[in-house]
């Protein structure tokens, strides 16, 4: 794992990617710090982080698109498959290297609140809490990007798909407000979600019985619940969307709430996507 991580880290900083990643983030952080804190004389550094979170939409695909797609295209994945290292170590090594790349600009950003204290009282706790949230948000999105990169062998496809996925995540809470609040609509949406899940299960396992079984079980459970307590379904889908939005979770940190459930949620997202990435690589070994 360490060998992979070292290689990836060296690769990021040998080319431009690592530097561009930092430079781009710091450039905008600088602009917003100047606008909000220096010109606007706000004492809150977290507003800057809030404003630059959208940069992840561009930065994350740039960092993740190469990771596994390029390995497959250049056939270097054969090396990874033949080396005596587990695929989980490969994925973890790559992921940790990306976290390290992300850490570089965040370490620089950590200096900003301290600098700002020269001009007055700065709520340091919220500033650093928000920075931790910012880093966690980035870590989450990177795991999503890494997974998407494992699905394709084209960097472009990987980048575009990641951008699309991140856009959906970014606008999820906004979209949630357009979701009809009626209980029945929620039921339909959830059943559609279950069907989608069952389809994904079928694609992964190639076992129609398991997939249809899981789908029917999920749909049946939802219907039973709906029959028992239809009031609980009112606005449920919208609430679920809001709860699932990693960006929404980050805004909690910006508001000065260091919510441990959000931390756990982010970590589980990371865990799930890294697991999926390992599975996707393992699947390549079997079909190709």
């Amino acid at each position, binding site marked *: 794992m360490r060998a992979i991580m070292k290689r990836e880290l060296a690769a990021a900083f040998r080319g431009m990617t690592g530097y561009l990643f930092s430079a781009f983030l710091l450039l905008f952080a600088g602009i917003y710090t100047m606008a909000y804190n220096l010109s606007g004389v706000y004492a809150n550094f977290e507003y800057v982080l809030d404003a630059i979170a959208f940069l992840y939409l561009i930065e994350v695909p740039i960092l993740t698109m190469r990771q596994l797609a390029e390995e497959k295209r250049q056939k270097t994945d*054969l090396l990874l*498959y*033949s080396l005596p290292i587990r695929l989980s170590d490969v994925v973890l090594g790559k992921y940790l290297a990306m976290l390290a790349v992300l850490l570089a600009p965040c370490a620089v950003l950590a200096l900003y609140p301290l600098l700002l204290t020269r001009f007055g009282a700065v709520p340091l706790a919220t500033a650093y809490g928000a920075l931790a949230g910012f880093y966690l948000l980035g870590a989450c999105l990177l795991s999503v990007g890494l997974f998407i990169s494992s699905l394709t062998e084209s960097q472009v496809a990987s980048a575009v798909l990641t951008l699309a996925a991140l856009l959906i995540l970014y606008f999820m809470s906004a979209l949630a407000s357009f979701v009809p609040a009626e209980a029945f609509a929620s039921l339909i949406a959830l059943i559609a979600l279950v069907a989608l899940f069952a389809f994904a299960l079928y694609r992964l396992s190639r076992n129609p019985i398991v997939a249809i079984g899981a789908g029917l079980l999920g749909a049946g459970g939802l219907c039973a619940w709906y029959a028992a307590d239809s009031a609980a379904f009112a606005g449920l889908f919208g609430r679920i969307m809001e709860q699932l939005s990693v960006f929404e979770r980050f805004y909690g940190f910006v508001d000065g709430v260091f919510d441990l459930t959000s931390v756990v949620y982010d970590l589980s997202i990371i865990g799930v996507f890294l697991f999926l990435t390992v599975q996707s690589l393992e699947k390549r070994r079997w079909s190709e």
Partner: protein
Amino acid sequence: MIEVSHLTKRYGAHVAVSDLSFTIEKGGITGFLGPNGAGKSTTMNMIAGCLGPSEGTVRVGGFDVLGEPMKAREKIGYLPELPPLYADMTPREYLNFVAQARRVPRAKLAQETERAMERTRLCDVADRLIANLSKGYRQRVGIAQALLGDPEVVLLDEPTVGLDPQQIIEIRELIRDLGREHTVLLSSHILSEVQVVCDRIIILARGKLAASDTAEHLEALLSGGAPVRVLLRADETAAREALEGLAQVESASFSPEGDGCTRVELTPESGADVREAIFYRCAETRTPILEMGQSRASLEDVFLELTADDPGARGDSYDGDSHDGTPGDGRPGDRTPEGEKPEEAPPEETEVIL
């Protein structure tokens, strides 16, 4: 060292490798020969654990490649068809990375990398970017990578493709060198290469095992029973009187040719040389011999025959370990004329690319 049993790989309806079984003993170089699309690379990938088989198992050094993958893969150095190189690294960095991943102890890392580079003569380009290296050097980096950590088994998938003749000779020397310490499995579609380098040959055709034996045995297999053709100045009856009933001859055919000559074709028993007996018998009966010749099958013939497109051309696959049956039936009549095949044919010569 390598045990492959009932290996099958299907891609949808297409069967790339079908029920392949063979065993490779420790040490020496085994050639893996077959025309393009015979399933060589697929099999190599499965032995290296890069590809899961649809059926069957592979054991390397006693470890199941899928059951105990880490232990099995530690024993394997693998050069895939395309060397898996990171173009943004230098050979030294790249080899260091692979050595680390192969769990070479930290203290030995530099030494191990240096050793691999010396063996493959990479030291001159050690600190240039792989992206800027020529194909020959890249291939060598790929081979160097397969030697790191001193694996017992080295799998090389078409290691000489795209190299110039000088490089090919160098790489072949290197491979011969490797065969002294490692068990090498080398795939190729170039017959002469396999002939020159390998101790043992496995021929693959359409995903099936066509033959598995030493090069000498494969050649002897056919040339032993190759018919002797004699042209006698005698009419058919006289020729029959002279040569019929010769010992160690399985069958004889007589066909008259013009000018009172007869063409006789004698098929000896496997392994027997009847040419002298023919001479003495003809001398006794005072039958002049105008011509005598024996066609000797080359490995090329064996290969062409075994991998012929018509699956019905031959019966079952031939395995050298079971010496029975009479080979040579159903062979194409057209053969290379008598002439010793040089043991060590220069590589540029007789390059049959199939």
